[in-house]
């Protein structure tokens, strides 16, 4: 979105390698850089939560219920005396596991199907397109809720169920990429040399198709955070004692008049995570695909 106009000589200087040039373009985009740093920080906090969190995430302290911000609890405590800062850090862990896990599931299912459709074409392509149509028609929320009610829920199941609804997007993207790249000269050359289909699709084409796929992946993260928080809202998401931003909001809405921090902290976390991944995605798109606006 906030594409910085590219000086022409700069592209030429960095044209030694595609990734080099992409990194150069990304660095020039200050907003994307800041967003990237924040996204990495959130991931780090989630990863290191057991080490850096000031309290035990499930420790209940009934002497400090709804204590408000103070020296002992920097961001206050919730209705059963759990430290909000600790819960927010552990929340980063669960929320980010789902937010990255779900697109990963979508990628693992969608990529091979899209590659087969785009590369082999013909009957494979026809069949895959019908499959896309079919899956797009079924209301995703309905399917996900059905899965959750039947199989129960934990962090990885939640990522799996949301991920299953994401695969069509990855499939469509991979198919479009392979359809476009299939006719390019370097692929024709590899074919003429007798390289096997499998090797061409994975070794020769995949590195050329990976840019838009990375961008799409990152763009799914805010969507998954929304959806996962929504499931918490319906009571179908992450369950106690695990901390999750969506659940923190829903648990503490009733205590809003007593301690607004309880709601504002998780809202701030969700907002920060969604914005940073969204701007990171925009920045990556501008960097990896300089022809797009």
């Amino acid at each position: 979105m906030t594409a910085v106009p590219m000086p022409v000589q700069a592209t030429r200087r960095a044209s030694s390698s595609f990734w080099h040039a992409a990194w150069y373009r990304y660095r020039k985009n200050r907003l994307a850089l800041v967003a990237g740093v924040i996204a990495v920080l959130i991931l780090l906090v989630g990863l290191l939560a057991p080490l850096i969190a000031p309290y035990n995430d499930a420790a209940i302290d009934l002497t400090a219920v709804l204590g408000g911000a103070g020296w002992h609890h920097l961001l206050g405590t919730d209705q059963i005396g759990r430290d909000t800062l600790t819960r927010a850090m552990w929340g980063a862990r669960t929320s980010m596991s789902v937010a990255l896990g779900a697109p990963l599931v979508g990628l693992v299912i969608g990529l091979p199907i899209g590659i087969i459709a785009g590369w082999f074409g013909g009957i494979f392509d026809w069949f895959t397109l019908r499959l896309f149509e079919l899956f797009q028609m079924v209301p995703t929320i309905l399917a996900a809720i059905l899965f959750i009610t039947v199989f129960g829920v934990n962090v990885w199941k939640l990522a799996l169920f949301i991920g299953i609804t994401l695969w069509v997007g990855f499939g469509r993207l991979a198919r479009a990429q392979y359809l476009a790249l299939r006719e390019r000269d370097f692929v024709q050359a590899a074919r003429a040399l007798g390289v096997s289909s499998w090797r061409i699709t994975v070794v020769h084409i995949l590195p050329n198709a990976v840019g838009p796929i990375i961008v799409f992946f990152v763009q799914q993260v805010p969507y998954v955070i929304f959806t996962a928080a929504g499931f918490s809202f319906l009571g179908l998401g992450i369950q106690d004692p695990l901390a999750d931003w969506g659940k923190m909001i829903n648990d503490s809405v009733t205590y809003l008049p007593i301690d607004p921090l309880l709601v504002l902290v998780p809202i701030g976390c969700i907002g920060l995570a969604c914005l940073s991944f969204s701007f990171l995605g925009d920045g990556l798109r501008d960097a990896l695909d300089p022809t797009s606006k």
Partner: protein
Amino acid sequence: MVSYLLQRLLSLLFTLFLATVAIFAMMHSVPGGPFTFTQGVMSPAAMHNIMVRYGLAEPVWRQYLNWIWQLLHGYLGIPFEEPTMTVNHLIASAWPITLIVGGLTIAISYTLGLLLGCIAAIKHNTWVDSLITAVVSTIGVALPNYVIGFLMIEVFAVRLGWLPVGGWGSVEDVIMPVIAFSLYPMALMERYTRASTLEVTYADYVRMGRARGLSERRLLFKYILRTSLIPLITIMGPWIPNILTGSIFIEATFALPGLGAYFTTASLRRDYPLIMALVLIVAALWGLCFILSDIAYVLVDPRVRLEGVSR
């Protein structure tokens, strides 16, 4: 054109058939059923009576055929959660509410998004552009719409008392749900409008027109927007069925008695007839919107032709 339409409608029917078979099979293949309770287990005889009463004692393929047969007669069955009504009644009473909120949401978010996107593109690289893009994309993508809904209720209903907290009945009840629901589609619309208008603004033919001395106003309305708005049909068209079938989260936040709540309760309680009806509505709307947006695309863009159709 007519034969093309027929062909598309037939393929839609076929996909609908497959979708309902898939959902039906999925519902029935998972263990348990609508009348399997963990507490208060019924006697086998009572259980059997209920199964027969709701047609669940027959084999699954038979149940599907029964459902199709009912459907062909315009009857969607009896919802397990409200056995005194029919699914037809349930939907007829709930969907209008969702449609009103959804229709207003589409009208507001699409017009505003389009307008803001155009303004941002025309004022490209000025503070107006940065302001619009930053504000719109921030409020659109930063928070889930139901969280924004909560905050709005807290501020405008609880603290200030200007608007009702939720529910359905008076005209004011529409305001907050529509605003909260509109933010995300509006942000999408703004982004796509801005991007596609920018792409056209720097096209050679526009530069040529400018060099030729055409007025900016003429360039904008006759040359730029007519081209740039075409891709929006295919991008924003598919969002329409999504919005018209309602948001579970918005309806729960504002306590609207719309269709959205049934998406949750129907799957939670394994209410087969209701689930099938919801799937059918969503899938049919999707399919129709896809066909309509393809046709609209051909009608407004002389460069695109439908496969096998001559104009």
